């Protein structure tokens, strides 16, 4: 099943965040709990971890992109 991973909303006031770094490449196998990407908002670097295992199919946004909250940044294919 394809699952969209999004820019998390980390504060009530948060409108967007910067996708700072990919910690997994396209095609990588990901275990639940493993770090996927880092975002920055309000001086917080937040490591986003996988909530389920799968394969990172597609990175939809590049490093440095500003992404509105809850918009997809990647597609994870889960079993």
């Amino acid at each position, binding site marked *: 099943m394809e699952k969209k991973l999004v820019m998390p909303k980390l504060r009530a006031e948060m409108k967007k965040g910067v996708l700072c*770094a990919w910690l997994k490449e396209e095609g990588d196998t990901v275990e639940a709990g493993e770090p996927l990407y880092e975002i920055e908002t309000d001086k917080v670097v937040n490591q986003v971890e996988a909530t389920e295992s799968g394969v990172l199919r597609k990175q939809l946004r590049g490093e440095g992109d500003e992404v509105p909250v809850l918009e997809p940044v990647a597609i994870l294919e889960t079993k």
Partner: protein
Amino acid sequence: MEHSTADGKRPEMRTFANPSHDPFFNQAFEEYVFNTFREGDVFLLWRNAPAVIVGRYQNICREVHAQALRERGIPVVRRMSGGGTVYHDLGNVNYTLISSQSDLVDYDRYLEPVIRALNAIGVPARKNRTCDIAIGEGKISGSAQKAAGGRVLHHGTLLFETDLTVLDEITTGRKNDCFQSKGTISAICPVTNIRSHLKEDMTIGEFQERLLAEMTPPGTPRLTLAEDQLREVERLRDEKYRSWEWTWGSTPAFTYEKEGTFSGAPIRVTYQARRGRLSDAAVDSPLLDGALAARLLTGARLEPEGFASVCRTLAGERWAELLEFLL
């Protein structure tokens, strides 16, 4: 910290003494403690010898004059948290609070106990903006966070008796607008030192001791890292915080362009950098060998020392003048 866990018990608090003033070691110390102690709360106080500390995703050259810092012997250290560039010296006290937290961002949870502690020792501090502490309109503290694996590291500066002239020169002296990139840009705020607002004077050592006593509940174990743990911190310092890959190689991708007059003739320098490596470099000047410049710069590492050496090859004794156009 005065919050409670689900079962009503106050989480365990620990503090580790870190007498080091080495800014690379101290970043590694924080990260080691963050990664190693995964339960309860941790409070740290520490100070750095003069250093510029940049945020995780900042372009160093846009924030500070890297070459001028080199000449003054002030190192640039990249930290793991977000936010902007700060200047540290021995008159600045850094605090770190580590705690378990779900993914929501919360600054007040960390700032409130610090502000209460400051008030209790006679510092008329108040919260300002999202994550600053101020006395009147003068900022005394900025903070930033790193969140991973259900844990948050919150840290902040406390200007006690920092040399504000140097701070101002370094953090506001140069904002280089030749970079087009998406990294985090620093805010510039008026600052003030805590010591000049105290009713009863105290030394920085007394300030640290009283702050530690206020921030940690009675009976909090005051720990030190064991020898083998300190070796691990040193390894992290050497392999990560002192490495080019971490400090320069994690600069967000950017495009650079600068024009001006070099030794009386027009000059235009352009390049791109990704993961700290240059591409599409061009130096257009009637006084310089453009083909050689392109060859030397393409694939070169972004860093003042390497750039200075390229400039010496290209411009001989006028290297410093040329370097101003490259960074």
